[in-house]
């Protein structure tokens, strides 16, 4: 299931406290606030009777996969709503501009989650969002890690949605459920959310300008890309159901997300190097064996003994991929190579 991220709210407050840092660059935030206030998708998420009709026609294994996808997406959006809402609340006094942006982002996530939850009702299900709010299992990340991870997941979300939208527009025979038609406008929200995290990183320049920042950038790129690739390969029936080749879809999303991320992270992975895909595919194989070992009828001890070398193999592939030569990158506002750039 998607993770619920939480963070050190006190440190967040301090980072963006305009009393403490009188020279905090607010200009990008003011500009973004105007973009979010514009509320481009205010009237976009309106359903029609096509939804229930389409859902009733989806049966067999594809139905279960659809339900699972809706559940996972709804949960992820809902967790985003909770985190942003809390950040909006906590930063109100110390930085009202940034706080308002977080609140407007939580408005977007609530809309997305609500729309997905209504989709679930087409399949005669619904997520207990109240129950999810009380969930105690969460992943703690210090603020700077929240910035890296959330930037990546918002931008990757944009690329996933727009790719599915554009593919289905050209291949309408696969439009088995109308929600995909909403993706084009919807994903602009995700893209804007990513822009805000880009501005947060630029305002805290120390998260972008040293060797540690470069290592963390590469680490989070790797985690996010590998997680998506492994997850999607396990759910390949959905992508095939809408006419996509899962691995080709994922590689395209990874390449584009990486290119976008190169506009802000000081280092990114060389994802177009064939070695990168080779290692990802190897990880998929190992992961499949790991899952098989876990699901076998062996006793616990035997299961663990089978899994240990597999986990070691996976870790080794991950490390080798991490150590691949990275690509130097970053915003032209302060990248070292800016002077050589021709626009």
């Amino acid at each position, binding site marked *: 299931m998607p993770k619920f991220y939480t963070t050190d709210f006190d440190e967040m407050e301090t980072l963006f406290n305009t009393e403490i840092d009188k020279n905090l*660059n607010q200009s990008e935030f003011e500009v973004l606030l105007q973009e979010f206030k514009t509320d481009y998708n205010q009237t976009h998420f309106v359903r029609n009777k096509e939804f229930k009709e389409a859902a009733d026609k989806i049966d067999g294994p594809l139905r279960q996969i659809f339900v699972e996808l809706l559940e996972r997406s709804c949960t992820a959006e809902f967790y985003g709503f909770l985190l942003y809402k809390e950040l909006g609340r906590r930063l109100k006094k110390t930085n009202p501009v940034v706080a308002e942006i977080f609140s407007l982002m939580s408005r977007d996530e609530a809309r997305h989650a609500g729309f997905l939850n209504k989709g679930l009702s087409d399949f005669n299900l619904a997520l207990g969002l109240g129950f999810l709010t009380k969930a105690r299992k969460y992943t703690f990340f210090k603020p700077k890690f929240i910035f890296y991870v959330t930037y990546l997941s918002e931008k990757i979300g944009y690329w996933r949605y727009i790719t599915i939208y*554009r593919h289905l527009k050209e291949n309408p025979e696969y439009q088995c459920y109308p929600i995909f038609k909403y993706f084009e406008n919807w994903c602009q929200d995700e893209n804007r959310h990513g822009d805000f995290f880009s501005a947060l990183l630029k305002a805290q320049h120390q998260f972008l300008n040293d060797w540690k920042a470069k290592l963390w950038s590469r680490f989070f790129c790797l985690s996010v890309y590998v997680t998506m690739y492994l997850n999607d390969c396990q759910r390949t029936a959905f992508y095939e159901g809408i006419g996509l080749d899962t691995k080709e879809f994922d590689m395209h999303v990874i390449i584009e997300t990486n290119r976008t991320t190169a506009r802000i992270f000081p280092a990114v992975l060389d994802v177009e190097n064939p070695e990168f895909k080779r290692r990802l595919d190897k990880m998929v194989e190992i992961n499949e064996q790991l899952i098989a070992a876990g699901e076998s009828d062996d006793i616990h001890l035997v299961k663990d003994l089978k899994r240990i070398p597999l986990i070691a193999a996976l870790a080794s592939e991950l490390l080798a991929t991490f150590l691949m030569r990275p690509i130097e990158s970053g915003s032209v506002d302060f990248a070292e190579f800016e002077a050589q750039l021709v*626009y």
Partner: protein
Amino acid sequence: MLGALSAASLTLGPGSAPAPFTAKCGNDGAANALATAPSFRTAVAVVDSDQLSPEKKQAQKYHFVVANAKFMLDEEEHFKELLFERLRYNGEHDKEQDFWLVIEPKFLDNFPDITKRLRRPAVALVSTNGPWITEKEKKIYHGQWRNSTLFAGREGPWPPQVPPFRLCPQWFMKLRLDRVLSDSYEADSLEEALASNPTKLEFEKPENWVAPYAKYEFGWWGPFLPNGLKV
């Protein structure tokens, strides 16, 4: 020395600010443009009301981001989506168009420090909906650079070697596209502001297209060109 700097930057005339402030501000800020742009003014001058002729139009400020045409129109597909989203929004709220795409704009002739770093043909996104930061606040930032967290922990002589990007106005398109140069100018009419040199555009097909969809059609930018211009 800091006090003298603040006083110098308040006048904002050509050559009055020290080199680092003009070097990188939005890739050549107002001070430089003043020195090189006789027909495009970048600061509002105080004029006696009896000197104003009734026919004199109010100068309008135009903000732009610019890069080569291949980047703006062929590579950045999300850019097309943003422009159409804005167009849709303006339509839904009965707003007049306040942004345009200009291919090989004439105003670039007055920004040599931009054009020397620009691949041609170039395309600019021009808008009257500019950044919020005013001239006054730009001056305040000039004086406070040394306390900025951008330079925290850095030792070294004055002036700082790192381009002081914080001292420049930002706007959303610059943040989103990043690999663009930006600035602003004034013009007396829309026609003057959006004047361009006729150019034929041609883009090579990408070497390696891995997307499960076709590229956006050549010419998608038609609705955003100034009135009457063809693709």
